[in-house]
């Protein structure tokens, strides 16, 4: 198990270098001159332009730029944004916020998704099952930003139960509504995934055996049906953590959450390579680690899976 874990963590290095190289190149290749955008359409003297271009290494060829970036990275220097801030500071502020948001969303997905999915699966064809199926279909069909705006308007502006936007501190409590919006679509998927899986396992031989042995219904459901049904769900949740962190841009925009999605979006528009690469780099690490955890959970859920 330990050597497996170490091997997987070692894989991080080539994945990280490959991803940053690719992203660095993509930002480099996007058309346009970041310095022209900095001037905002106002005049800029050639001398000033030259000085700025040199300051951000934009006058150097791609490999030199990337090499310099990697060199600085080894000393934990992630570079500077155009606004003169350390990229590490930008990340240090945005990532904890987005992480809180993503974890909350994941909890909502996991707890309610599995709960509703199991109930629906056990009562296949009944009223609860049909209601959940229809509701989840609607949630999947409606775009996130519509859900976000509607919930914000109803709960924040009309009922005034919460403030329409989160404060700068972005506390756990404030993030519940945004997390609900962020996790709602995935929640619908988790419900459907769990439900299908439960229905499949319900008729399996070992469940019939367990019931025949006289085990309580609760034990049959939690230990025999649920545990075996969770593998696809856990796979989905693991992959989803990364998407929740990187893909929260719409939700973050609606609720004004100072997170990673918006940082990345603005950096791409400005052509601010160090920020884009750093954000994507951290997201890559999150993805790899989440997948590692998922793989380890497999072994816990299904004793037949062993890592040598």
């Amino acid at each position, binding site marked *: 198990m330990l050597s497996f874990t170490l091997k997987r963590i070692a894989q991080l290095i080539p994945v990280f270098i490959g991803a940053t190289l690719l992203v660095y190149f993509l930002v480099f290749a996007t058309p*346009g001159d970041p310095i022209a955008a900095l001037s905002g359409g106002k005049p800029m003297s050639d001398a000033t332009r030259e000085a700025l271009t040199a300051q951000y290494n934009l006058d150097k060829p791609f490999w030199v730029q990337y090499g310099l970036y990697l060199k600085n990275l080894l000393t934990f220097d992630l570079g500077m944004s155009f606004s003169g801030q350390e990229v590490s500071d930008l990340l240090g502020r945005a990532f904890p916020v987005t992480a809180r948001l993503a974890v909350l969303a994941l909890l909502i997905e996991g707890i309610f998704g599995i709960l509703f999915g199991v109930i629906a699966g056990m009562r296949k064809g009944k009223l609860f099952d049909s209601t959940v199926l229809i509701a989840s279909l609607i949630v999947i069909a409606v775009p996130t930003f519509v859900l976000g705006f509607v919930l914000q308007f109803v709960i924040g502006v009309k009922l005034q139960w919460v403030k329409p936007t989160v404060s*700068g501190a972005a506390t756990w409590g404030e993030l519940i509504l945004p997390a609900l919006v962020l996790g709602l679509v995935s929640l619908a998927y988790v419900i459907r995934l769990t439900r299908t899986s439960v229905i499949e396992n319900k008729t399996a031989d070992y469940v019939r055996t367990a019931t025949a042995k006289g085990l309580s219904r609760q034990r049959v459901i939690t230990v025999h049906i649920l545990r075996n049904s969770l593998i696809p769900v856990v796979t989905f949740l693991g992959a989803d953590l990364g998407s929740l962190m990187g893909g929260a841009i719409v939700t973050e925009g609606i609720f004004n959450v100072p997170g990673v999605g918006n940082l990345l979006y603005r950096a791409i528009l400005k052509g601010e390579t160090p920020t884009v690469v750093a954000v994507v780099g951290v997201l890559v690490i999150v993805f790899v680690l989440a997948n590692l955890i998922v793989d380890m959970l497999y072994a816990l859920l299904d004793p037949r899976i062993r890592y040598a």
Partner: protein
Amino acid sequence: MRYSHASKALALSGALALTLSACGGGSSDKPADNNAEGGNASYVVTANTTEPQNGLLPANTNEVGGGRVMDLIFTGLVSYAADGTTQNELAESIETKDSKNYTIKLKKGQTFSDGSPVTSASFVDAWNFGAAAKNAQLNSYFFESIKGFDEVNAAKSTKDKMSGLKIVDDTTFTVELSNPESDFPLRLGYTAFMPLPEAAFKDPKAFGQKPIGNGPYKLTEWNHDVNLKLDVNDKYQGPRAAKNGGIDFKVYQSTESAYNDVMSDTLDVLDQIPPNQLASYQTDLGDRWVNSPYAGNATITIPGYLDHFKQGEEGNLRRAAISRAIDRQLIIDKVYQGGKVKAEDFTAPVLEGYNKDIPGSDVLDFNADEAKKLWAQADEISKWASDAEFTVGYNVDGAGNKEYVEAVVNQLKNNLGINAVAQPFSSFKELRNKVTSHKMTGGFRTGWQADYPSLYNFLGPLFGTGAGSNDGLYSSKEFDAKLSEGLAATDPTEGAKIFNQAQEILFKDLPAIPLWYQAVQGGWSNNVSNVHFGWNGVPLYNEITGK
């Protein structure tokens, strides 16, 4: 917001000595009413902003997010009142006999918020710092009129002292310009010309994060991407004194969410109504909104380097035809719900000397028949291929650009019968790169926000031969001569008249086709009163009081 065309602040003292009077602007009569209503002067106002793009240094702040904060935490020799007139702040007097050599005297006893004195050196050093190429400040071009700029702003130059700036004593310094420029004193209220304390030059980068200024407010906290907190600066003595207990600027990623915060009284002042609420904000907010023009415009530039559009008879006919084929009012009503004002000239209506009836301005009036006629006349000189595409470029990352450019293109298609196409660019930086390297293959969207309230600011930087923002490479000796003449005038009213004569030339050549003047749509919460917007569309934050 109201604006007047009457000259209020520029007063001539003595024969040729130009002095800026210290009379208050349009809102100076407000505080009395406010006290009668029982306004709360200790209320901390919350307002929306965007994250400043750069450290807060005067010569490096060129966008609204940083600009609105800079204008509150710093004050220059002069400042602008609500109606765009100029009022003295730190300047005791600004005198010139020839619009080329200026003697500037400072009021005594002025200090920065940390107690250090504001002296002639605070200005001279700050301007030299801003101009020097080695410091790579975005606003460096603002100092280009000062003698010696060419030396300090040359590529790889290590010099940082302009020969045109000379300190006489602690409160007096002189400025020599390369050429006479009568509107130089008007510029001095712009952010780039603010003074800096000595502490700033030791580590400008660190200073930009924690600036020490001399304005009505001081910055106490800057939580990046979250908020900027401003406290009242007790040491400020000028005309823009704070009538509230401070301002908390909240950084918003979208105006939509800020709008919802205003609706629920979570945010006090919003300076931009989101496009999707333009139809309903006036009913949503009762009497807590404003819609009025400010000093900015939107134009379409068809560069003179394109075939069929070269400066000359054919190109001018085609540009005039395109201008007359656009029904501006229809677009304003349909796309902007009335949130813009049809352009009548190349400048903006909130400026001193503005004239909406300049001869030749009827080329901006919609007339489809006339447009077709002009286009046909151009065809007689050189035929426009019937399958040729005429493109209008825009950047998709700016809200509303797509809608109006497509509306314009459709009108050209219908009214001129040409194959007009909207040409999207993925980002502002991509569009600007193509524009500034003069590689555009068609027309493109342009616009100008005034840096300081002056007609010249809409003309010189945009249409002067070789000027920094002359995107269409326009060049006219006649126009350049009028500009110089206007700048040399010592009487601002006379200067404005000459600038408007210069515009007559522009109406013939149409180096850019004016579409409409920008207008600000803003709103505020139930918690505040006395919300007014200035000549540049920015709220007068210091005037706002709590209820």
